[in-house]
């Protein structure tokens, strides 16, 4: 017999059992779907699809009642941590609180029920949204023009690299290398490869920043450009950025700025003012689209004037109104030397609409406050926990701070990983573990600006308690409060079970 869809024993409120899969809850003949009344004649499948194309059996999905579906998904939701439940200080991920007004904007029928191929005259509100967002992002980044198509940061990076390539080719060149610091996010090197370039890694110096000397050694006229994250993944501002950009420009390369960490510098300093040619922004970090358990996001790419002609298209543009009193009109245009589309339609449009709402509600002043508070929180934690964990690069940080549990590890045998699991039992989601790779036993903490002083104190105290537990060798069992205990990741890879059907 199928499992019981009305039993709540997997909800942490009342139990610690596993939640059956929807396939186990399934029972032949049970349904929940309803289709509207059609009034159409009802020809059979044989009149609709030639026999050689017809599938013999329907796709075997689950067969559950609406009630059991709701129970299943609601219980799953209780087995999932989220920002709305508590702090989520994952460094590099900017898990801030996302204003619910943005959800309301994205849910508006006037925005969500528009077909992407609707003629421009029938989608003026959308074109206006895109054009205004592009303008705002360019102002924030200090750039001339942008594409909103990339669906995430990595897609933005690759777009940027293809822009680099197109620019290069337009100059009649064919450079082969792109430089990346060793602290870079993994998407950077992966994107470089897909962009058809080779990665040249440059080391960080003892300050945690690009070693400018080392950089100069690898710069030559085979270098198409450099990708730099700023603030970098150690949470540090690359103070030499202008010198770096100049050096790259000197050899004829372009400067790519990974703007995923823009949260830290909104209204304080702009990539465009640092000599940057291309920058991508992670709207799902800085502009508070909730992360949805891993996505969707949006990774617009903004460029300086000399690259605008190469941007993907079409872009929504404000047209000259016919007369001075006419309302603004918007149209599509594809840049003259466009590299082409990088998304099937116009990008993650509803994410873009959220971002515009976020920018509007914060405004120029509010965005600056976001940066200030994010940096204030991170620095407070850095200072507060300096006696508990090691701080490999001990100087003022930006919006996040990287600690090292290496000394604790050495002393007690408890790794950063163990500390993370211990923190779960304290009621907090752990920081990012084992990234950036250049720090041993890294614990990367990004409190974000939406967490209060009280929460920071509670988090610091919790970390202190966990380290104390490490000293008492009590962390091996952690977490103990969760629906499942420590998960065997190695086994998952060893005996791959990627679907229910692969279960034996």
């Amino acid at each position, binding site marked *: 017999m199928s499992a019981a869809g009305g039993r709540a024993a997997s909800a942490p409120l009342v139990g610690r059992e596993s939640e059956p899969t929807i396939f186990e809850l399934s029972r032949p003949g049970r349904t*929940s779907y309803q*289709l*509207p009344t*059609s009034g159409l*004649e009802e020809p059979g*499948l044989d009149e*609709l699809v030639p026999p050689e*194309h*017809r*599938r013999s059996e329907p*796709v075997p999905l689950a067969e*559950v009642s609406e009630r059991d579906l709701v129970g299943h998904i609601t219980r*799953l939701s209780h*087995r*999932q941590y*989220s920002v*709305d439940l508590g702090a989520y200080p994952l460094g590099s991920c900017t898990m801030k609180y996302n204003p619910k007004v943005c*959800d*309301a904007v994205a849910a*508006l*029928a006037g925005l969500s*029920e*528009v*077909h992407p191929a609707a*003629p421009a005259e029938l989608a003026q*509100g959308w074109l206006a949204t895109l054009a205004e967002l592009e303008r705002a992002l360019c102002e*924030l980044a200090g750039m001339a023009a942008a594409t909103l198509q990339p669906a995430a940061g990595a*897609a933005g990076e*690759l777009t940027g*690299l293809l822009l680099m390539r197109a620019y290069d080719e337009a100059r009649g060149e064919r450079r082969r290398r792109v430089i990346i610091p060793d602290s870079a996010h*993994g998407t950077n*090197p*992966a994107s*470089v490869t897909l*962009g058809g370039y080779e990665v040249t890694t440059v080391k960080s110096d003892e300050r945690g920043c690009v070693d400018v000397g080392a950089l100069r050694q690898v710069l030559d006229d085979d270098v198409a450009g450099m990708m730099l994250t700023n603030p970098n993944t150690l949470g540090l*501002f690359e*103070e030499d950025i*202008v010198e770096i950009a100049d050096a790259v420009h000197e050899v004829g390369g372009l400067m790519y700025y990974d703007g995923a960490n823009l949260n830290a510098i909104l209204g304080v300093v702009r990539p465009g003012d640092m000599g940057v040619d291309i920058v991508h922004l992670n709207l799902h970090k800085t502009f508070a689209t909730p*992360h949805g358990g*891993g996505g*969707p996001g949006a990774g617009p790419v903004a460029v300086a004037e000399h690259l605008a002609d190469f941007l993907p298209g079409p872009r929504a543009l404000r047209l000259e109104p016919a007369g001075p009193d006419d309302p603004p009109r918007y149209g599509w245009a*594809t840049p003259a030397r466009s590299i*082409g589309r990088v998304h*099937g339609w116009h990008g993650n*449009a*509803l994410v873009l609409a959220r971002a515009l709402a976020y920018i509007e509600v914060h*405004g120029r002043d509010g*965005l600056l406050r976001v940066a200030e508070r994010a*940096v*204030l929180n991170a*620095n407070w934690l850095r200072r507060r926990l300096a006696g508990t964990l090691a701080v490999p690069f001990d*100087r003022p940080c930006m919006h996040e701070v990287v600690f090292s549990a290496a000394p604790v590890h050495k002393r007690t045998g408890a790794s950063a990983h163990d500390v993370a*699991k211990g923190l779960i039992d304290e009621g907090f989601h*752990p920081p990012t573990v084992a990234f950036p790779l250049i720090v041993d036993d890294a614990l990367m903490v990004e409190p974000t600006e939406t967490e*209060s002083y009280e929460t920071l104190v509670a988090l610091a105290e919790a970390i202190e308690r966990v380290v104390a537990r490490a000293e008492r060798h009590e962390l091996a069992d952690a977490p103990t409060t969760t629906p*499942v*205990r420590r998960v*065997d990741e190695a*086994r998952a890879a060893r005996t791959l079970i990627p*679907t229910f059907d692969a279960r034996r």
Partner: protein
Amino acid sequence: MPDYLPHTDEDITAMLEFLGLASLDELFAAVPAALRLTRDLALEAGLPEPDVLARARARGRANRAAELICFAGAGAYDHEVPPVVRQLASRSEFVTAYTPYQPEVAQGGLQAIFEFQTMVSRLFGLPIANASLYDGASALVEAVNLAVGATGRHRVLVSAGVHPNWRAVLATFAAGTGHQLVEVPLVEGRSDWSAAGPEEAGAVVVGYPNYLGCLEDLGAARAAADARGALLAVTADPVAAGILKSPGEWGADVAVGEGQPFGTPLGFGGPYLGLFACTSAHVRRLPGRLVGETVDADGKLAYVTTLRAREQDIRRERATSNVCTNQTLIALTAAIHLGWLGTAGLADVATRCARGAQHCRRGLLALDGVQPLTGTTPTVREFALGLPVPAAVVQARLADEGFLAGVALDQLVGEDGDGSVGAEEAPNALLVSVTERRNRTEIDRFVAAFDKALR
């Protein structure tokens, strides 16, 4: 000065004091003074939420298309989004979670994706499915990358029946990867593989149904791939898949698709959902995240992201893909929607679409001067017509009658009209699509209005 920041003045003072700083400004000491922005951003001051909502509503009202009865498709479909799916998928635990780095507190999201993978695998008839890619187009790009990687051959035969926007994306990214794309023409709406040279290739790409709505001969595609040592990659419509033989059954190595029809609104094109499935042989080349089953320290069933060594954060420049943030929430939505549809529901939706399309097609073809663009090749849920007047004119006239008439074929790729890709994309060509939301009365009214619009 509305905002979401909890800091009181006293908090700020105390925290700055603890840091030995005199002002918030000093927090940015690391930023060279010469770089600092010394003016306000050229943005408005912050607006309160109700004002922002009012603006967004006004923009929504400016989207006349939102009010029209939709006969447009071309990869983005006006399917029903039932309230139960909407409500479940918007639970904040799912919406405000991050990538499940700590499986102990992410079993909910992980299990949902495990179920999603199972459903996609069954839908496409292939044993492996990943946790989502950005959209159908990006899934296609990844499929081609996988095929090229697996075969070591850079030549890629792409049917002209693959969605033109997807082909455009493929072409954009091929500039980086160096794939050599060969367009295979359509004859009466079907790919003519004989027109492609006999040289070896890494991938053969074909749509099922293709973007003109036609059922391709996948047996021929498979043979074309075999003859060239290529993998067969199918871009499949996941709704039509409810009544069609699966790509896996046809022998596809990789199947990709656009998952928007499963619970995601049209949303002007995004966020959508790239579906990706393949044979077991290629699991280690799989792009993106994969959830697997395992156990916890007590031996209890648990889920976790697995085969992570393929991914960019570990493998870096040697990763199978650069994807990091994907479309998890949309995948979860699709899993809920497919759970709601169930076995019978998916077949029913597909059948309904086909019925409506057949009825509509019959009605439109009876109109003066309207011709099928694809001969007698069978179509399922959408179909391409040649009109006696420009499609844009018909669209404009029908909008005044309350209909979004379809997709003008010359409008795809470059909305400014510069992107026509093949012969069938003449200005007079229109692609009409019918979903289960369209009832007979609407279709009949549409046909009547269409008739009027042609005069």
